[in-house]
């Protein structure tokens, strides 16, 4: 097979490269092109779609195109954040795959000049009754914890879902949130011909060569054990030193620009720096400190060794930069310089071994139109065996024990969630984490959400629902969204049905963002998530950052005995796309259109109620519907309730089973004093009083159905995850 095909380039792309260069590329150039023209770096199947997303807003400091997005939080401070995937490496080697995923997203935020202050993660696995899945879950959770804990960055939130389409292709998405003084932030653009290019951090080795093209831009096959050497090994200690070193360099104003080395290593970081600054760049591979001897120039240029950063430094400041690197015992090497040629030049032994126009290399990758077609049949397995006619007293425990809904304390207990002294709301009862920013005299809330199951049933409606749920999670702690980041995890976009999922989903993302007035400030695309057993559920993962002016008002406690309960919002429950449908084997295409405007009105009402301190708690209705939402509150509070869903059934004409277990956006459970809850009515948002918080049982009446379960029974089901995943 021709070399370019082995590297993932099509014949047409290869011809295009030859045409641009006026000759055939040599081995170094071909390696560099193949990586930057891969899906992972070149976004060739998604760039056009991403261009439709709203990216502007009054608080946006940095948007797409930078290493991460950033929003202004006042007092001279900005919050930088981004979510990124490390799916295929984690499928091959879960511990290192997840760990280096965390390390990579941390460096994106560090590169902006921010200090990381929180991590969140969104994970997807197959059902845990499979031994390999248990190995993956254990390895990924340990890997996420290992890197974040060792770095002293708290992991404050996240979500884990389990479904058959992820069995061979798990998802590991990590989101990092950082804080920076706005005037100290740096951009990735290189500038000033004659300035030095400095490589900092770890030595460069043969690890991860071709990761972006081999692992991230192709489907996983059965022979992937052989790809283990393309997974990188993480060293959080090195990154911790690199972080402190970069903070000190930035505080002294020593850097012209800063960029992390991630996928495609030096090739992409140096290339993107040159492209953004419209300059040329020259790299002498002989000056790159190596971990092993005999590395070829192309290997040095594409190595994905971790814990490295690239900086542009004015020549007279290089001495001071070297001193600070020495203080932190981290690597320093001048490896090249900025030029005015517009070329990316690679030299070795005093000779040019590669020379390409930066524009061709970084921005010349062709983009492809998708060829979307709605699938004619449901493309996913439907394995649930719960009897849909079972009594509510049997269905609710089954839902609570479903790994997707069950308590994730097993995982969160393994993450340091408090280091940094900012965590006001830890993982647990609340829907979003809250972080104090005393230097900015404010606080932020952060949440991450995705629902592949619902997006599979209706890519547009499902994606709108995910964005609305993320905003709803923020509202429950009194936060107003400032910006959004996303990671689009999909199958092979060259297949029309996946193209349809992707196109519809991005439309939904844009529509929801525009309705909420929330800009997309950055993101990541992970395509080709499929194996011989088919594609994953289309899984857009949304990370959102919101503002909480006064963290003391946050309603983080669940309800208390004597409170009243209200259902707030235009919630119109349906079992379509629900976890109930998954457990009963009845998932299929079709999701009701969400009431976007009504849901946003409810989000605003709840946010103001929480901020004013008039309600004790707010919880949004998600997987498993009202029954699960009430059960979760009862479990956290260890107090039950007596709720009647008659008013909901009267308003929406839903069936009693839909009322109990149906899902959909726009539903909140609020608890507090009766008068305060009743006062929320009459503002255009449905408010239905459900009943009192009382006793040690969960009692819910829905038309002719009745649910009555003791908290002990609920707990047994809900805390079943450790037994499931530890085997």
């Amino acid at each position, binding site marked *: 097979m021709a070399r370019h095909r082995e590297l993932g380039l099509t014949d047409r792309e290869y011809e295009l490269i030859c045409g641009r260069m006026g000759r055939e590329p040599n081995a170094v150039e071909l390696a560099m092109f193949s990586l930057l023209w891969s899906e992972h770096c070149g976004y060739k199947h998604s760039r056009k779609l991403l261009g439709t997303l709203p990216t502007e807003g009054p608080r946006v400091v940095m948007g797409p195109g930078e290493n991460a997005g950033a929003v202004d939080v006042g007092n001279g401070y900005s919050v930088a954040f981004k979510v990124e995937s490390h799916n295929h490496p984690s499928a091959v080697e879960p511990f290192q795959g997840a760990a280096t995923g965390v390390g990579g997203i941390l460096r994106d935020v560090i590169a902006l000049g921010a200090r990381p202050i929180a991590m969140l993660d969104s994970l997807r696995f197959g059902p845990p009754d499979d031994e390999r899945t248990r190995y993956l879950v254990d390895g990924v959770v340990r890997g996420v914890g290992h890197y974040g804990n060792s*770095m002293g960055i708290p992991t404050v939130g996240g979500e884990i879902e389990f479904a058959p389409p992820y069995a061979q292709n798990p998802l590991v998405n990590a989101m990092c949130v950082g804080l920076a003084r706005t005037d100290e932030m740096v951009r990735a653009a290189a500038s000033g011909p004659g300035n030095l290019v400095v490589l900092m951090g770890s030595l460069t080795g043969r690890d991860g060569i071709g990761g972006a093209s081999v692992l991230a831009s192709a489907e996983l096959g059965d022979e992937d054990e052989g790809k283990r050497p393309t997974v990188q090994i993480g060293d959080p200690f090195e990154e*911790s030193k690199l972080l402190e070193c970069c903070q000190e360099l930035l505080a002294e104003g020593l850097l012209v620009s800063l960029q992390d080395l991630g996928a495609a290593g030096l090739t992409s970081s140096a290339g993107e720096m040159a492209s953004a600054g419209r300059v040329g760049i020259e790299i002498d591979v002989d000056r790159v400190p190596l971990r092993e001897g005999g590395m070829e120039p192309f290997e040095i240029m594409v190595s994905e060794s971790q814990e490295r950063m690239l900086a542009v430094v004015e020549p007279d400041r290089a001495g001071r930069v070297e001193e600070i690197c020495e203080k932190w015992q981290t690597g320093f090497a001048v490896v090249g310089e900025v030029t005015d040629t517009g070329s990316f030049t690679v030299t070795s032994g005093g000779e040019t071994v590669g020379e390409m126009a930066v524009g061709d290399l970084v921005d010349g990758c062709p983009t492809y139109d998708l060829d979307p077609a709605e699938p004619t049949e449901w493309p996913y397995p439907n394995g649930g065996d719960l009897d849909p006619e079972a009594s509510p007293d049997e269905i609710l425990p089954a839902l609570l024990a479903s790994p997707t809904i069950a308590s994730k304390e097993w995982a*969160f207990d*393994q993450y340091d969630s408090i*280091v940094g*002294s900012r965590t006001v709301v830890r993982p647990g009862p609340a829907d979003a984490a809250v972080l104090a920013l005393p230097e900015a005299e404010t606080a932020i809330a952060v949440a991450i959400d995705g629902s592949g199951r619902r997006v599979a049933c209706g890519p547009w409606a499902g994606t709108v629902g995910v964005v609305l749920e993320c905003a709803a999670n923020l509202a429950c702690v009194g936060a107003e969204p400032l910006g959004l980041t996303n990671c689009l995890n999909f199958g092979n976009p060259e297949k029309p049905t996946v193209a349809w999922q992707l196109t519809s989903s991005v439309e939904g993302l844009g529509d929801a963002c525009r309705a909420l007035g929330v800009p997309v400030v950055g993101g990541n695309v992970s395509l080709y998530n499929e194996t011989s057993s088919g594609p994953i559920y289309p899984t857009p993962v949304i990370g959102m950052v919101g503002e909480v002016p006064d963290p003391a008002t946050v309603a983080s406690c669940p309800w208390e005995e004597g409170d009243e309960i209200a259902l707030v919002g235009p919630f119109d429950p349906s079992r379509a796309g629900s976890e109930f449908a998954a457990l009963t084997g009845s998932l299929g295409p079709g999701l009701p259109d969400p009431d976007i405007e009504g849901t946003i009105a409810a989000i605003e009402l709840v946010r103001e109620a929480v901020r004013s301190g008039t309600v004790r708690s707010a919880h949004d209705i998600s997987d498993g519907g009202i029954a699960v939402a009430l059960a979760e509150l009862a479990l956290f509070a260890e107090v039950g309730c007596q709720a009647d869903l008659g008013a909901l059934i009267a308003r929406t004409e839903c069936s009693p089973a839909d009322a109990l277990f149906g899902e959909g956006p726009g539903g909140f459970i609020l608890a507090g004093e009766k008068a305060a809850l009743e006062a929320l009515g009459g503002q255009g948002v449905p408010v239905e009083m459900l009943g009192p918080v009382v006793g040690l049982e969960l009692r819910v009446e829905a038309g002719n159905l009745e649910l009555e379960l003791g908290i002990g029974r609920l707990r047994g089901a809900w805390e079943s995850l450790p037994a499931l995943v530890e085997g």
Partner: protein
Amino acid sequence: MVWGVLQFPGSCDERDALNACRLAGGEARLVWHGDDDLGGVDAVVVPGGFSYGDYLRAGSIARFSPAMTAVARFAAEGGPVIGICNGFQVLCESGLLPGALLPNDSTRFTCHQGELVVCEADSPWTAGLEPGQSISIPVKHQSGRFFAPPDLLEEIVSSGQVAFRYAPGTNPNGSLEDIAGIVSREGNVLGLMPHPEHAVDLLTGSVDGLEIFRGVIGAQVG
């Protein structure tokens, strides 16, 4: 009152410790691991984290740092020293405290709000607390299982060196005797796995950790 908080490459909780010291009272500054002079501080905090990556054995490299040589001198002269989490591990590795911290019996990292019982140790660090009192302080570590051979353990217990125990039934790591923290024979050096520096503000949890820092301020003033 001037606090010195050690900073190793790989420290994680040093800024949290600075914050806690300042909230407790006094001035607080970082002491670089390469400095062999503590700069005249009145009390030393060896903070949590993963000093030098802890790839060999928790705390085993940090004990060789110039700053730890200075801390050993300071402790020998009766200066108050607290080692929290990784700091406790470093103090044990340095021989300033007896025993050792082994990997948790779960082999996993654990992070949760912990309940501790104050024991009858004679130390300025516990002077503001009553024996038998229960305090709520976060626990977060990977290697917190306190271990000592039987004779040494007996000596630690009988000589009143146990400062804190995990509340009955809440031992998170398999520590012998539910031990969460111990003091040196002279009482001026305290090591504990739970994190009092993360229990100094109601907004982020509890304030029960403040009393530990304040105990030393009281002793300095007294």
